């Protein structure tokens, strides 16, 4: 189901061009609007569909196996933290609406700025620990697992 762009809705803003992971959404130089220039490299990931502020991009199932006449539309809202889908079958018998959260926090607020964290000491540097460890491994006071702590050795041979 490669993407395509509706002529009357696209204003050529380029959000889709900016986000497409496959670099296939481009601006048509004559019409100054976006289009999918390489449908056979489209993964149907919907990144451009979600990014389009005018809902100008839609998807039509791959011509080699998907019949015409279906629809899967989406509205992603970072402020509300939700994604809303609507799926319509070709035969009209199924019309589903599905809603899911995309984040539990206001966008970007839960992520630490590591340059502001206290610098690790030499003991931490020489250890096998990563940032926030060992605490975040088990959310308690336990240490990091080692071969010794878990009664293990590495041996050559066939073991099952």
């Amino acid at each position, binding site marked *: 189901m490669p993407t395509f762009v509706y002529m009357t809705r696209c204003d050529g803003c380029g959000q889709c061009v900016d986000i*497409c992971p496959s*670099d296939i959404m481009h601006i048509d130089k004559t019409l100054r609007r976006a289009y999918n*220039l390489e449908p056979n490299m489209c993964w149907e990931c919907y990144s451009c569909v979600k990014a389009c502020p005018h809902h100008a991009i839609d998807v039509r*199932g*791959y011509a080699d196996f998907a019949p*015409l006449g279906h629809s899967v539309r989406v509205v992603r809202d970072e402020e509300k933290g939700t994604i809303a889908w609507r799926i319509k079958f070709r035969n009209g018998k199924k019309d589903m609406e599905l809603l899911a959260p995309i*984040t539990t926090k206001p966008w970007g607020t839960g992520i630490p700025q590591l340059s502001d964290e206290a610098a690790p000491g030499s003991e931490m540097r020489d250890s096998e620990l990563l940032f926030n460890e060992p605490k975040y491994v088990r959310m308690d006071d336990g240490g990091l697992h080692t071969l010794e702590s878990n009664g293990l050795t590495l041996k050559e041979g066939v073991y099952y």
Partner: protein
Amino acid sequence: MAYKTIIENDIDILVAGAGLGGTGAAFEARYWGKDKKIVIAEKANIDRSGAVAQGLYAINCYMGTRFGENNPEDHVRYARMDLMGMVREDLAFDMARHVDSAVHQFEEWGLPIMRNTKTGSYLREGRWQIMIHGESYKPIVAEAAKKSADKVFNRICVTHMLMDDAKENRVAGAVGFNVRTGNYHVFKAKTVICGAGGASNIFKPRSVGEGAGRVWYAPWSSGSAYGLMIEAGAKMTQMENRIVLARFKDGYGPVGAYFLHLKTYTQNGLGEEYESKWFPALTEMVGKEYLDTEGQHLSHKPIPTCLRNHAFISEVNAGRGPIHMVTMEAFQDPHLEEIGWHNFLGMTVGQAVLWAATDVDPKYENPELTTSEPYVMGSHATGCGAWCSGPEDVSPDEYFWGYNRMTTVEGLFGAGDAVGGTPHAFSSGSFTEGRLAAKAACKYIDDGKADGINVSDKQIADLKEKIYKPLETYTVGRNEIVAGSVNPNYINPRQGLDRLQKMMDEYCGGFGVNYMTNEKLLQIGLKKMAIFGEDLEKIAAEDIHELLRAWELKHRFLTSESVFQHTLFRKETRWPGYYYRGDAMKLDDENWHVLTVSHRDRNTGEYTMEKAPCYHLVGDDEE
């Protein structure tokens, strides 16, 4: 040439490719290198790049030690069992002991992880998988990487590593071009963490025409992890260990949640259970250590994925296809039905589109499954990638050379698909590997190992010429013909990709030959590959977008050549269901209970192969 050369100097840590591995690396590097210059070069836009661009509905690697669920060694044993023994268990143990700390941080960052309302622990899909609402998984981890990095260069296709002119076999950065402006970008760096992707689209896909992008792994996963590292001279391991996926037909929608959480199951076209009847013959092929159906029943050990594939493929070949997923029972429960659909919308929207287009309502119809074309990658249920050092406190001597996740090229580290021998890392494990590589890279710099790096202007100029050559080839050759794409002096990237896929399919065990190959076929394939390599010198690009495809193809070519060499080297059928060596149809532990390691000479392109010992974690109770 009109394109500008833009040089970024004095980088400490260059992250080449920012999927889950690369974002983990950039994020963590800031903690260990407060004053270090951390730069990301990403082929697409970091907010939606890599295999997780579309989102995920599950995190497939989470121990849950906190909830008393598993210990790291349990996961190592599981991965070992699934991969028929072939795992770098030091790396796997190391990843598993850290992975939960990454997941707990994701939750803090706002990733919605579902909870079991009764126990308060994360909602399990299976023993290792937890369920998430992960549509924005990638944008969330991208935020973390962006906060840590000094600069993020989006839309840079990294084509080559820069090598130190002062010291043999030491990395000095990377080069590439901007796929929008066309400008040449030079990143001079003390270390490089390769977070680039595995390889889709190297074997001929089942989809044809417009649908050729409907591959299981992302079409933008161009094998650049391997292309970049192989070209730099890094040793690779387990490149023969391609993976074939049993998935919903055409859309390749995931089956994990269906099997594990929705409790759906498969049956053949006659409505019969078919797997178990193939097991006695399979046990003959692989030995009782690997498939002991009675014992397995008692121990509740899962059957290795490749062996289940084998049963699937054999049943279809016996004329009793198609294989169906029985969804009609589970989907009567409206809650489970909703999960079934959310599962696709969260990570493979195309499957939902396909069912809507074909009026397949799994509540009233059991959908068809298929086995995919093979993929070469190192983070899902297989372990292709670079031969990397493990952690000091775990690894035996053969697996350790100073810095965790460093390849055999000094200063070049890997994460995610780039690291070999670490299957079942998935998204969370790849992010974790990035973190481990970042800490080690900082240590490498602090130890003075990157001192005195020198990159000559000649190297930079030579690479520039090389990168833009396909544009030149096009300009020169195009005027010879009236119009169209048929030219006696060049091929375009799509024509080249078609040729590669056909060779891989027919000679290296693609779906078109029922995953079968042998020494003779592989040797013919390699001969054709060598000539293809010559033609790739004449690849033409009409514009910068095609130049991107040209370099992706070159990376896919280097990956494929390595797959050929490794498949030829391992004279046994280790993973029936992934591929078969028709001239050695049995698993052969006496000669091949080893990891395969290859080295491609940077200057001559010659391959040398070796066996590396396979170590296993053994517990007190097993000795």
